[in-house]
């Protein structure tokens, strides 16, 4: 075998291994249960990438009582709910309010916590009541009880609404003054304020509602029974109260092991080294595998694009048109949530695989476009000389046109590698904890937005610099 053939085989085996691994990892646990990523004190990530919080600890205690195992999947609240209805996960515990609308699609456990919605404003804000909101903008987190409540009183108080996907961005919008207020569950808001969010609560609790654990309607009845039984048991033996007190009457620092003097840039960096390292590793893994897949797809599309006849070029330009035109985020949602929904039968795609397919299609379409251009840039006389010697089309393509075309394309390939690396950050929307999502998670816990984002930005720049050096070196070698 030639060198490149060995490389391709090794690669495919490695890929196969990964996929196999991610599938078996799922099969190990009895259930897959989804939760939110940033909803302290119910769920949030602590040092080392572990999730903690009321929901997490309750679930753990209940599972122990009832002897079942589960794999926890931290997604955005919306993604968690969508996945539950698409049968991608077995249950959701995410500070989820039991509402009649939700009861149409989900079955809920007995309520495990009761909380109301409060309005919070910036510390120096003149706004004191909802009557002051007229004409102003209010920040809401999609799918929360706070959002439902605010919508119900929007007409009455005449404010505008701006939606966010996670709590921190919502708080931050109020903090910097883009919005004047936000609506949030009381325990969440008061926990956050205790931990340094510079907002204040200015209303009493409204619309008190019950939090429940949800399964898809008519499914997983056994899991629901186990949850209810377990909940009763931990309420009876005092575990429940212990958990609630632990979170609602504690400073974040005592939960995460972080101390106030570790809030310097270097301190934060060393504190979160493990988490950031894991995120970085995921980003690199996604980038490398996606680049290889996209390159293969791109080469196929490029070759189809310059084939004689009409069919090849038509297929190539259609695929390029579709996947270059679709925003990466839409494509990611479509593959991860839309596609399994379409197939039904409980079909699941691991997020990592969905992310790879997304990147492969999108980056592959861009690659296909420049590969086609590269082949077209090879002097026509080359193909003619090869054909006049009697070489068939494919042999001429492989031996004469492709090697020259690929040389022309090298700068575009390098450019595409860098774009792919950056595009992996978009996959955080389907719950892949790569470098960017890692940043979101760390900030959800310590609210150090500036320092952490600076850190993440620097890491990206360093990797891109290294990648550029490497590719310049490769380019020099080839020429």
């Amino acid at each position, binding site marked *: 075998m030639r060198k490149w053939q060995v490389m391709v085989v090794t690669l495919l085996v490695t890929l196969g291994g990964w996929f196999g691994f991610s599938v078996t990892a799922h099969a190990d646990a009895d259930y897959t249960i989804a939760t939110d990523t940033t909803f302290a004190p119910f769920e949030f990530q602590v040092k080392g990438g572990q999730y903690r919080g009321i929901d997490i600890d309750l679930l753990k205690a209940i599972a122990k009582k009832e002897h079942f195992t589960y794999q926890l999947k931290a997604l955005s609240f919306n993604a968690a709910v969508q996945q539950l209805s698409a049968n991608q996960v077995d249950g959701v515990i995410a500070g989820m309010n039991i509402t009649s609308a939700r009861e149409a699609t989900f079955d809920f456990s007995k309520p495990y916590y009761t909380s109301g919605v409060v309005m919070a404003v910036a510390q120096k804000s003149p706004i004191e009541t909802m009557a002051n909101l007229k004409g102003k903008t209010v920040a809401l987190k999609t799918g929360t009880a706070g959002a439902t409540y605010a919508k119900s009183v929007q007409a009455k108080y005449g404010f505008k609404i701006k939606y966010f996907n996670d709590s921190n961005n919502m708080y931050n919008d109020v903090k910097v003054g883009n919005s004047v207020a936000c609506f949030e569950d009381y325990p969440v808001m008061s926990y956050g304020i205790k931990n340094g969010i510079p907002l204040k609560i200015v209303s009493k609790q409204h619309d008190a509602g019950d939090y429940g654990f949800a399964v898809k309607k008519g499914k997983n009845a056994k899991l629901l029974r186990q949850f209810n039984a377990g909940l009763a048991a931990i309420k009876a033996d005092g575990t429940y109260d212990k958990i609630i007190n632990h979170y609602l009457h504690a400073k974040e620092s005592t939960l995460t092991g972080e101390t106030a003097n570790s809030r310097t840039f270097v301190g934060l960096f060393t504190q979160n080294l493990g988490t950031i390292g894991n995120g970085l590793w995921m980003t690199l893994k996604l980038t490398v595998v996606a680049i290889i897949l996209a390159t293969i797809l791109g080469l196929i599309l490029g070759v189809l694009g310059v084939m004689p006849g009409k069919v090849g070029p038509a297929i190539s330009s259609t695929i390029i048109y579709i996947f270059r035109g679709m925003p990466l985020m839409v494509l990611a949602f479509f593959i991860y949530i839309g596609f399994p929904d379409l197939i039904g039968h409980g079909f699941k795609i691991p997020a990592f695989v969905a992310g790879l397919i997304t990147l492969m299609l999108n980056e592959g379409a861009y690659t296909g476009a420049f590969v086609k251009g590269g082949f077209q840039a090879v*002097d026509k*006389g*080359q193909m*003619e*000389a*090869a*054909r*006049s*010697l*009697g*070489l*068939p089309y494919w*042999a001429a393509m492989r*031996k*004469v046109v492709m*090697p*020259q075309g690929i*040389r022309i394309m090298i700068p575009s390939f390098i450019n595409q590698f860098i774009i792919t690396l950056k595009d992996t950050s978009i996959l955080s929307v389907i719950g892949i904890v790569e470098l960017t999502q890692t940043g979101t998670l760390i900030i959800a816990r310590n609210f150090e937005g500036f320092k952490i984002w600076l850190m993440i930005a620097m890491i990206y720049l360093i990797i891109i610099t290294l990648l550029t050096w490497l590719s310049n070196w490769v380019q020099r070698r080839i020429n």
Partner: protein
Amino acid sequence: MAVKVQVRDLHKSYGKTEVLKGLDLDVQDNEVLCMIGPSGSGKSTFLRCLTHLETPTKGQIIINGHDLSDPQTNINTVRENIGMVFQHFNLFPHLTVLQNITLAPVQLKKETPEQAEQTARKLLAQVGLADKADVMPTSLSGGQQQRVAIARTLAMHPQIMLFDEPTSALDPEMVGDVLAIMKQLAQDGMTMIVVTHEMGFAKEVADQVVFMADGLIQEQGKPADLFNHPKSPRLQDFLNKVINI
């Protein structure tokens, strides 16, 4: 003598413009045919039709007994018997001189890599470039590149060779080397169709000269007749211009 190339009523149009307007031509075994004519008259197009780099709009071409318009004909097999040398050499810049020559014979399994290399070295010696086997083509002068291109074509052992202005992209002092090799080929009995502006070469080597203009063969005959007693005013005019240069 056997007919190697037979062309009947050959037409070629690009869209609405007709470039070849009905050509008839026979080339015998071992014959050297030189084709002259003003720029744009369709000489290159004619050669490209012979190797099927262009598909004729109408008419018949029979090479070595194979009818090119017959869908049963395997064009790759025909091409193995008919070599083409281009004005701009079209060497493969990513391969060494030796690899340029051995690529086709090895790919088409005509020879083992070892045999092909032997043949290639012999051919390089024949064109006076024995010491250039392992260099890249771009490091060679134009004349050297064209000689490599000839060797590359010869490596397929063609029975017919087509030359499309093989010396017109060369510096004057390089022209002689290339023409000498072509002359040697002619003497060895190769059937050749040569499009050229080298009147001296045509006079000395050609068995037959064809004058083309406006997509038609205007005059045809032995070099002595054609050059010394041109009949049509077009040819007289053309020869005057060429000689005055």
